């Protein structure tokens, strides 16, 4: 397949600005074009870097208080009842609007979190060295993480299942170190990310509309750890792997 004109639409695709049909066509193309796949990985890393470095200015608490006081209604000064009501309504609209933005922000945060995990999963699939510890033996893979990440976890017994452990690597997400474990089922790869619970604030998978990416995702929490499994396998396969992990805990 040719590189152009798809590359020109990559930004719009990653910005979520393509129509449903165009998104589907782009995803179909990405499955068969390694050049565009590599460009997509580079651009998602670029987006992640911009996002990470751009949120660096925090307001001074005293300034926050000053603004809050300045937008609070001052009933003593206003004699006109209607003007006062109007001002209170204006403040309410701004506060309610801002609250709705918080809810949307948390949802967006959840979407962004899963988007970043999907990026890492894609990068793993595209890499010629997808894992740093290569072993099908959980008793080799688990000890490899000791001292490299600030927590320990249990790996499931895979004997008798259709899953094979490929290996693992250290993953970083929003400045938090974690583990990425790679499994194989038939010809599909599954990444399971493990991070300390609440490392990402209140962003939850429940807020994530899975229809917007081409992967199945499962998340669960156990023993103070957040688990995220992501792959193009069926939901049933992912559920089966989740059960094996839960049994190991």
């Amino acid at each position, binding site marked *: 397949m040719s590189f152009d004109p798809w590359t020109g639409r990559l930004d719009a695709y990653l910005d979520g600005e393509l129509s449903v049909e165009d998104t589907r066509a782009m995803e179909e193309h990405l499955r068969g074009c390694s050049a565009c796949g*590599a460009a997509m990985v580079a651009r998602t*890393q670029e987006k992640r870097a*911009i996002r990470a470095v*751009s949120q660096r200015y925090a*307001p001074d608490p005293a300034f*926050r208080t000053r603004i809050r006081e300045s937008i609070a209604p001052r009933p003593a000064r206003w004699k006109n009842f209607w003007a006062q009501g109007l001002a209170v309504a204006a403040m309410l609209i701004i506060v309610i609007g801002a609250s709705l933005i918080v809810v949307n922000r948390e949802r967006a945060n959840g979407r962004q979190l899963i988007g970043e995990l999907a990026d890492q999963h894609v990068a793993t699939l595209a890499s010629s060295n997808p894992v740093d510890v290569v072993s099908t033996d959980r008793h080799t893979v688990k000890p490899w993480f000791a001292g490299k990440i600030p927590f320990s976890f249990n790996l499931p017994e895979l004997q008798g299942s259709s899953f094979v452990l490929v290996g693992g690597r250290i993953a970083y997400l929003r400045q938090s170190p974690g583990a990425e474990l790679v499994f194989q089922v038939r010809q599909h790869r599954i990444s399971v990310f493990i991070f300390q619970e609440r490392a990402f604030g209140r962003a939850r998978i429940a807020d994530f509309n899975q229809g917007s990416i081409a992967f199945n995702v499962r998340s669960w929490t156990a023993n103070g750890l957040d688990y995220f499994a992501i792959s193009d396998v069926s939901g049933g396969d992912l559920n089966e792997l989740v059960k094996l992990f839960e049994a190991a805990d």
Partner: protein
Amino acid sequence: MPLFDRLYNFACWLTQDRNEAEDLVQETYAKALKGFSSFQQGTNFRAWMYRILRNAFLNSRTGLKTGATVPLDVEGNEDVLPPVGETPESVLLQRSDWELVQQGLDQLPVPYREVLLLCEVEETSYRDIAGTLGVPIGTVMSRLSRARQALRTVVLKMQAGPKV
């Protein structure tokens, strides 16, 4: 006031000065309260607030000085922006390059910086960015593309030189 933090961050990126950013945010809230009747129900409240902040910036001393008010807003008039030169469509950024990205953003002209921040950080749709900046969607797309290329050019230049 959750939007407050984001408006302040955006104001800092526009002005590159915390005191001026505080003035901008204060002015934004004052204008929003005073003119809230102009806010149309059902439209994007956040985009409305950002537009107020940006207009306040354009009328500020720094805004006038940075030349952010040159008539960029006519589609096809993007050539008034600095040329971005020959840049690959994508640059593979490692985590160690993040500091370069930050320095690169600092160096970008305001029209590039603001469109990138609105798209990448605020996750604003092209349509709402167009509303905030007062330009057609086509201009948002071309400006975004040029902004990304300009950032890549700056980062590549810094990658080639000694790292700070």
